[in-house]
């Protein structure tokens, strides 16, 4: 016997406090921001949604974008196209490119930065870069709030707690004067096989003062080799013959480690991408 499905009840809070109160009383409700991830890939005309939905798009505070001396602060419900509107000179090339690579322009008018971070599926697009940029997240719940590093947020026990909502994303301004965001494959038509590479480096007086790079994989895991980055930071440019250097083993060993399964093709691509970025750094001199 088919039971009649109940249509969901929708709540339209206008302030963050209203939202937190509602969420506290209904922790099972669905927080609905852009909605693109919720309906993506579903073919029903009447998609089954949880009984209670809290719509976030009416809360102005959540869509605000602020610039301060040290960082860019983006409300979790700021639409991706609105963020792009800040301009490439503020966002810096890598972040600008990374946001632009997400879905179609029409979808970016709906999709939010918070949605991208909270989605369990789309870890590949912004995560690799935002972790490199030391992004911090504000998580609020009724009666309290905390700031957490994006990297920590990815650890399950540190992530969102019951009743908690991602409200703000803070990206520190940085002096990484060399940046690149590269996609291999096609994120739109073949998300599973595509990879994203984020590189940032700071070069001062011919010295590579800081270099970071991370890669987003098909299984939504992020690859980063900190000790390799550390070993390179502080070196004088140009760097030639790195593949012969014992330091390079740190990268190749990490690529071959059993923690992440990487096909030989991917290994070659990652090494190639990294070396090509290094090549670009050498060329900046």
């Amino acid at each position: 016997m088919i039971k009649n499905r109940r249509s969901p009840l929708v709540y339209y809070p206008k302030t963050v406090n209203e939202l937190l109160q509602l969420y506290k009383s209904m922790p099972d409700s669905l927080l609905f921001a852009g909605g693109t991830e919720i309906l993506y890939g579903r073919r029903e005309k009447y998609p089954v949604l949880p009984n209670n939905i809290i719509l976030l798009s009416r809360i102005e505070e959540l869509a605000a974008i602020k610039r301060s001396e040290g960082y860019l602060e983006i409300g979790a419900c700021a639409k991706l196209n609105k963020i792009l509107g800040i301009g490439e000179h503020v966002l810096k090339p890598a972040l600008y490119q990374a946001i632009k690579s997400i879905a179609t322009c029409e979808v970016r008018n709906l999709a939010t930065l918070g949605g991208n971070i909270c989605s369990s599926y789309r870890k590949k697009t912004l995560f690799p870069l935002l972790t490199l940029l030391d992004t911090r997240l504000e998580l609020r719940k009724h009666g309290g709030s905390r700031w957490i590093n994006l990297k920590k947020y990815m650890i399950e026990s540190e992530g969102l707690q019951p009743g908690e909502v991602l409200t703000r994303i803070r990206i520190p301004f940085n002096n990484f004067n060399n940046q690149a965001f590269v996609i291999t494959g096609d994120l739109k038509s073949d998300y599973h096989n595509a990879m994203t590479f984020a590189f940032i480096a700071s070069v001062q007086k011919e010295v590579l003062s800081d270099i970071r790079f991370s890669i987003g994989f098909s299984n939504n895991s992020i690859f980063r080799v900190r000790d390799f980055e550390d070993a390179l930071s502080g070196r004088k440019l140009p760097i030639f013959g790195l593949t012969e250097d014992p330091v390079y083993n740190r990268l190749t060993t990490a690529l071959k480690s059993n923690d992440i399964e990487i096909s030989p093709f991917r290994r070659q691509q990652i090494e190639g991408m990294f070396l090509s970025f290094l090549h670009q750094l050498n060329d900046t001199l």
Partner: protein
Amino acid sequence: MPDTHKDKRFICDYYTPGMIIIRIIRASVPCGNIIKINIPELKGDAGIIQFGDIPKNRCLKVFSKEMPILSDGNIRYEGEPILLLYGSNEQQIEETEEQISIEYDTDYTIKSMEIYTEDQIDREINYQRGKPDKNFEKSFRIIEEEYTTDAQNHYDLEPQGAATVISKKKLEITCATQWPFNVRDNVSACIGIPAKDVTVNVPAMGKTHSGKLWYAGLLACYSAIVTWKTKKPSICIIPKTDSILYTPGRAASKFKFKTGLDEDGKILSRSIDITIDSGAFPMLSEEMINRICFSAAGVYSTPALRITARSLITNRPPSGAFNGMGFHQSFFATESHSNSLAAAAGLFPSEWRLKNVAKKQINLPMGWESRKPMQLEILLDTVLEMSDYTRKYAAYKLAAVKQNVFSGKKRGIGISVCCQGNGFMGKVEENEKYTVSARLDNDDKLSIMTSAVPENFQTAMLWKEIAGKILEIVPADIKIETTDTSLVPDSGPSLFSRNITIIIQLIEKCCNAIKKSRFRLPLPIEVKRSFRLPRTNGWNPETFSGNPFPVVSWGAAVVETETDPINLTTLVRGVWFAADCGKILNRELAEAEIESEIYRSITSSTIKPPVKKYTEKGIPLTPAQPAMNISITTKFIDSKELKSGGLGELPDSLVPSALLEAISTAMNTKLTSLPSSSEHLFRQLNHKEKEKIEN
């Protein structure tokens, strides 16, 4: 102009609330038997249709082949329709759909193309011309190679479907089809009513690439059965994912070549073994295998030839026509093989082609009886000159040897030459008596009646222009009736560029006949004309002799690429295209068609869409198009053919082999399967590297 678009209705626009909606419940296993179907209690006007509920004929017929409209208990491919769930409350239907479960007995071996048994063979052709074995003995060198092409799905933008209403005791079907009369006949047979009691209307359609040839008939049957049972209007629209996965796509194929060359690099003998995957129901395998055999040896002089070809029945969705129906696969394989032959003979691919292309039709591999001179050399020279091929090829070949990831992007260039057969092969056109009629009314207004479905409004405009020119009438006074089977004669399916070659010829004949009697007989004058092959053609399908097509188009192309040696992605820099396709009716339209087909062909040759079930996220639902602006140069050479030939299939036959050859040249390797994604290119390079180390 596009503003008229507001009146265009696609099949999805025919739904109105209250109509009965039909959902197809499909098999989730590739083969086996149904043990049990668990159906929850149905509410309201909801109902179920299974194989046994089909009123009369339970099979869909296409030419001489048949397939069950719904599964008869035996599952032959994953996604085979098992039952229809219908009702007017869509929300309720969606809920019921989730609760239907089917149990299967799946203790069977899956039939595939890779390893096959004798009983899988649907049709086999053995053809021989000259003495291949003797010529192999005489050959200076023999080259053996294997090529494969994958199955290819349709990525049409608009959904597929059919709607039915009962009006004055007649079934009125609205169905996005390229073959309205096939839909009418199948619906009348399946319901068990005379064909005159079924009319088929064709709504607006997007570009089809032959995806709506016979599959639309299946959906029309579903809608008709439900309306017949409930006496209410019904509509069956399949989701985009189903349309991609189950609409009859391009057949996968495997080619094994053995070619003997003389000292100069000229072909002496050829042996080709071809296997094609027709899927679970080989609905069009006869035409497909004939076309594949016809084109497998390319357009080169071949003194001795042996072809063995078979189409196999497998547990995959049925294969369909898809642009060219075999020409694409054949020309990819044979043109890629030609590049290897050129390399073996120590010649540039262009030189080898110029040396080997047939000068007269009688020298073609299949040896057409017509002695018409051919212009393949002119076509090749045209693209060579436009693209500066020779210089570029030499430079890129040299650069490719110096492999270094940091030496920048690798450029490559490839060339190919092919033909396109317009219309069905041989007698099909004549036997089926496909007709067009025209009527000049008292007010000097002309009506053209044909069931051919124009691809776009430009095609219809072209028909009007041609008729208008003959009868000296302005296009505004010409009406084209195409959409209702009760008003128009059967003009056959709209594929193989028939709308340009066959239909235009018939319109011309009708108009010329009206012109002759216009001032002698009282108006209205109505004239009907059916197609007849020229007597000189004399095609014999048993011996593969004669000339099989009413009109043949010829083409050559050069593709230049740039491959990133790190991530192995390829950007197409330019395509130079030359064609000899008879009388050009509208140059702008022809160029636009070539351009859009080149883009599509590049995408399908380099992107391998992930094959997934519709339930998984991430299946691309749109016809992927590379975000690159390709410089395309097109030239039509002066043709010796007075009739018009099609050209839409030429890019799909030319581009894949030229593109893969360009990538192969750039990366100093050899790509032998289609599509070739960057992952595939890497495997190829890696394999080569390993071989080098082992040696």
